[in-house]
């Protein structure tokens, strides 16, 4: 087991390397010269050339790549062109709201979707099942920003239950304000997630309920609720966990939109601002950061498999 974990962690190294290479190439291929951007509209050709030299853009690409890679390994993602602050600092500043929004979304989604999918599977063909699946199709279809504005309209403007937008940190401003501010963004972001997870749960549990060991459990006199909890869900878990992992990738896209709709100062907003301003070091740093998060999540999920199913051996 330890052996497997070690191998699995080591194998993320080449993946990270390839991701870094792609990010590097991507930005060299993108139109526009960072030196020209920095120099501004009124710079002379000499100014631009001087900045190019300063930035090391005149060196061969390979040398540039390894210098960049070396910087990254030392924890230096570069400096923002506009704010002139280190990218790592910018990311660290914006990390908390995004991380907490992602966390509340995942927890809320799992808490809703898994029971929903399980009930739909158990009562397959019933009204509950149809309603759940209708909701699921709807959840897939509705764009995140449309849903966000609908929720703001209903809960904030009409019912006046929750604040319209903004973010309050639970660490400095208390858990109450945090929850009331994070509720609508979480709900907005969760809908597509719930749709995805509940569908997979339903499919997986439906299949497991046909298995012989479910019949064995009934033959022992076990109650239906415990059969679902103890025998069905554990066996249905692997595909569900997989789809949760895939969902986290989707979440990154959703965060950008949601944070804009609700005006949350998180990484999603940082992405948007950086792209609009063509602040290449930030974009580069964020892509790397998100890739790292995604690879890390996948690692955790792979390790979960071995815990969930003793037959999976590596």
């Amino acid at each position, binding site marked *: 087991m330890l052996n497997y974990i070690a191998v699995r962690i080591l194998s993320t190294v080449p993946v990270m390397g390839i991701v870094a290479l792609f990010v590097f190439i991507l930005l060299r291929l993108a139109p526009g010269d960072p030196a020209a951007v920095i120099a501004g509209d009124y710079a002379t050709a000499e100014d631009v050339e001087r900045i190019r030299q300063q930035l090391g853009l005149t060196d061969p690409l390979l040398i540039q790549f390894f210098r960049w890679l070396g910087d990254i390994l030392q924890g230096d993602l570069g400096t923002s062109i506009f704010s002139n602050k280190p990218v790592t600092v910018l990311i660290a500043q914006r990390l908390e709201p995004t991380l907490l929004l992602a966390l509340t979304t995942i927890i809320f989604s799992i808490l809703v979707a898994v029971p929903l999918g399980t009930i739909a599977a158990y009562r397959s063909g019933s009204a509950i099942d149809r309603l759940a699946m209708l909701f699921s199709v709807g959840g897939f279809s509705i764009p995140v920003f449309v849903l966000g504005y609908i929720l703001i309209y209903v809960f904030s403007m009409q019912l006046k239950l929750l604040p319209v937008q903004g973010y309050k940190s639970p660490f400095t401003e208390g858990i109450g304000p945090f929850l009331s501010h994070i509720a609508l963004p979480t709900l907005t972001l969760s809908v597509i997630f719930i749709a995805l997870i509940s569908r997979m749960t339903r499919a997986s549990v439906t299949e497991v309920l046909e298995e*012989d*060991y479910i*019949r*064995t459990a009934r*033959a022992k*006199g076990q109650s239906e609720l415990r059969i679902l909890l103890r025998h069905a869900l554990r066996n249905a878990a692997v595909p569900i966990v997989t789809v949760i992992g895939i969902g986290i990738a989707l979440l990154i896209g959703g965060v950008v939109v949601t944070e804009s709709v609700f005006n949350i100062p998180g990484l999603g907003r940082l992405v948007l601002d950086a792209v609009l301003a063509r602040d290449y070091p930030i974009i580069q740093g964020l892509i790397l950061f998100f890739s790292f998060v995604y690879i890390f999540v996948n690692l955790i999920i792979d390790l979960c498999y071995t815990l969930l199913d*003793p037959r999976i051996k590596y």
Partner: protein
Amino acid sequence: MTTILDIQDLSVSLPPGGDREFAIEEVSLTVDSCEIVCVVGESGSGKSVTAFSVMGLLDRRALNPVAGTIRLADKDLLTIDDRTLRQLRGERVSMIFQEPMTALNPVMRVGDQIAETLEIHTGLSSTQRHARVLQALADVQLPDPKSLAISYPHQLSGGQRQRIMIAMALILEPKLLIADEPTTALDVTTQAKILALIKQLQSSRGMGVLFITHDFGVVAEIADRVIVMQNGRIVEQGQVDHLLNAPKHPYTRLLIDAVPSMTPPERRHSNDKEALAANRIHKIYGKSGWFGRGRVVHAAQDISLTLRRGETLGIVGESGSGKSTVARCIMRLIDPTSGEILIDSIDIAALRQSELRRFRHQIQIIFQDPYRSLNPRRTVGDSIVEGPMNFGVAAVEAWERARELMETVGLSAESLSRFPHQFSGGQRQRICIARALAMKPRILIADEAVSALDVSVQAQVLDLLDDVRQEFQLAMLFITHDLRVAAQICDRIMVMQDGQLVERGSTATVYANPQQQYTRELLAAAPGRRKFPQKVG
């Protein structure tokens, strides 16, 4: 002796639109304490529906009891509420199933699965439960209960898993045990041991057992009383000796006659020319990890054989013996690690895939499960002509031959346009034979080709295989775990165990005078051997 289970006039309806209205109709039977009642029948006879009705485990979407009573412990199981029924399950009546691998939860330790029954029905503490579990494991004669209790099902053998099922079913000492084909999925030697175990536990605890089986050999081993079912109705019942020796109903006679005899009939010795020779085939499965080598399995070691035209060579052995590995190596469905496979002095084991292709039509195979070996989305005709047309036979010619072959295997040429699901298991296996023959092979491999079939159908398919062997002068390699079947069709046999050859010789010689201990054990374990001594040929 008291009556434990009393079923009266039980009818269970099928969903509308089926080939009959009831799955079982007016079934009445009783099980007393201290007796084993066998319900025998082929697939579709309603024997399992009867068993599941008692447990209340019928799939209510399709099957509904519409008339009759099932009395157990002074209660009518058809009218009590779910809660009471759940209390009876596991405590008064419990059940063991055919496939112990799938009947156990794969992600739960077996000890916990046994303890679950105690958790549901008793107020024992977890320490007390653990002690009871260890005792139960010892009762079913499993070695080292402590370490076994913390194993997962996939870490155990088939026999051990079935013992776990039995321990689980009997831990609360129920009055009635329902056993649904509990030994069908097991090897013969394991089957014999499990049957002995069930019999021993039954008599020491004074239980009643309702034992479902399709095999009269098993009936002869274990039953006190026998009930024969056909098409949802009981056609005959009686004491075991009486019923086996003087069956009244024609269907009972048919089933008893269909049990293949252990005495091989007289067979001709083939001196025809050699169709295939395999020399020192070796197959190693193993994986090497990043850190050193993993487990290595010698699936087949040093196996040599020759196959003449017009003869049937049997390879018999239990699961894991390597018999299928040898067959698949010979077909090059898997690549042997070393060794030669000679057809016309060409070593096909050494050929590359592209060169191998022109030899493919010479060796054809029929698999065990006819339900899964035909593409459900293609007509049987399409399946049959596909092979020849891949080898350049014109469509008209291929279809003409397909029509002829359907007649050869006893089906009508019109059914070529139908789909596999429209045929019964036996018919599908005939189609698989036709498909294999369409390639005009010289060598036919039958890998457990009759194991999934009902006994009466089994006999017919065996006859068909023997006929086509003669008609087309085929060299046939017959892989089976069933010694009774092997006795009937093989000219020569090879006995394998753990990837190695144990014994070989003409079928008659090996059966009459086995040289090796393992062969003797296998022959002795064949069910019903002692009760059917009169059966010859």
